[in-house]
């Protein structure tokens, strides 16, 4: 009896989650005339035209390319600086470590709106405005602390004896770190990379403020269409579906670690 009621609860909840997404997919497969003239749960005249529009128009697909470029840069930068730092936090006590750790956390909690304007001026003054690297660096604000926290959580789970044995066996620190330690926390690195990817991918405010043309993200491209008169719903829906795809593809690999990642490595 109990199994039955829980199945009902889960079915209702999952339907609640999936119906809006289904609606978006449904819209993306309709023509604009059908969207505004008839109301139907399935596309009457099935069309891929909206996707063709996006994939053939540079002002659309360059949005995805730009997003992917700065997200990749951000993931690489974040992980490169966060790995040694997380190791330091998980293995050593040093002067001011607690304060530093707390300070990193505050950056994760800082509202991006506070930083939007100063970022704009900072990057304009050093000539980085409207470049991919500017957005990648700006997103480090919340991704580096996140990566440090997640990695620290995973590194804690690796017994210290492994480090000590490796040093006795004559490994230098860099060699030990790359050859032995990194494979041990491979899943942690994967999860950290995934979360950096995700939070950089979903962020709108900073990427919209820091780019106008050359590095304009897909998120910014989509909001411009929203404000334009004569809404192109089909294309907008198709663009939305395409932004979900990368996330949906990688969820499968990190499904068992998602909770741990969101808990900042502390489950």
């Amino acid at each position: 009896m109990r199994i039955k009621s829980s199945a009902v609860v889960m079915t209702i909840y999952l339907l609640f989650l999936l119906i809006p997404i289904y609606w978006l997919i449904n819209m993306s497969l309709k023509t604009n005339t059908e969207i505004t003239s008839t109301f139907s749960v399935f596309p009457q005249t099935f069309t891929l035209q909206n996707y063709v529009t996006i994939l053939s128009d540079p002002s659309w697909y360059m949005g995805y390319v730009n997003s992917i470029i700065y997200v990749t840069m951000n993931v690489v930068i974040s992980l490169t600086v966060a790995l040694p730092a997380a190791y330091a936090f998980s293995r050593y006590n040093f002067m001011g470590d607690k304060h530093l750790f707390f300070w990193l956390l505050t950056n994760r909690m800082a509202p991006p709106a506070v930083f939007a304007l100063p970022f704009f001026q900072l990057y304009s003054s050093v000539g980085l405005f409207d470049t991919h690297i500017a957005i990648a660096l700006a997103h480090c604000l919340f991704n580096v602390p996140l990566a440090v926290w997640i990695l620290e959580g995973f590194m804690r789970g690796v017994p210290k004896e492994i480090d000590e044995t490796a040093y006795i066996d004559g490994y230098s620190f860099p060699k030990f770190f790359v050859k032995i330690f990194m494979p041990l926390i491979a899943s942690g690195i994967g999860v950290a990379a995934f979360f950096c990817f995700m939070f950089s991918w979903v962020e709108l405010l900073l990427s919209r403020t820091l780019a106008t043309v050359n590095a304009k993200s897909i998120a910014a491209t989509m909001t411009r269409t929203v404000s334009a008169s004569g809404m192109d719903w089909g294309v907008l829906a198709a663009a939305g579906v395409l932004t979900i795809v990368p996330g949906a593809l990688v969820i499968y690999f990190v499904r068992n670690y998602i909770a741990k990642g969101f808990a900042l490595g502390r489950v």
Partner: protein
Amino acid sequence: MDKTLNNKAWFLVLPVLVLVAFSAVLPLMTVVNYAFNDTFGQNKFFWAGLDWFEEMVTSDRLHQALGRQILFSAIILAIEVPLGIFIALNMPKKGFFASFCLILMALPLLIPFNVVGTIWQIFGRVDIGLLGHTLAAIGIDYNYTNDPIDAWITVIIMDVWHWTSLVALLAYAGLQSIPQAYYQAARIDQANRWSVFRYIELPKMKGVLLIAILLRFMDSFMIYTEPFVVTGGGPGNSTTFLSIDLAKMATGQFDLGPAAAFSLMYFLVILLISWVFFTVMTNLDREENH
């Protein structure tokens, strides 16, 4: 784990320090600079002292945005936390269906914030959206672009849709860490469902729930993109939350002084809450280790 004292570890932290200093401290100093100065352009600044702070502390606009923000965060927490726990208790414990539920539930968390806005913007519209259309068909007067109450309901349901899974996933992770022996002991004692929840499951979920509540509080407190896309802060100012108001002030009207003073106060509030969060969490960590 006991750690060794080693101040050379600072070298490992140095890259993070430099990077975050560049992307956080420098901009923050700019904000501080604006907060105490006035300018007529051309990089000429005049000392304005605490004028901007006075203006902001006494401004109705800020009070209203703050009021809406607190109300919003309170409603969000009141719905999402109990619902998330409830969902976690009903999730399958293992096997194919457990993974299946995990993957589907994680889906909304990984959709770009503005697309979440777009989904609900389309879904809620009376002319083309399933929700809006269905409500209109059964005779409920619903229009989130004109009616402030409808706009609020839409934004809240959207946030519940978007983030309840986070609370559920964290609570689920907490539940999974409870050894089977605890439940067997409860069965021997003939404990009812409520006592099992109250004395076994809830205490074990305490740590992750704390994280869930604080993450949800922080993120809802600085929500920007989703309501911006769906309602644009309207109708009127009814869904203008703190971040939306701030972005309007800073990048829309270029009222740098007031916006900067506003930013600093906003940041201090967050800092205070983060500190409480951090203290409670490290204390919990310590308790578990002893």
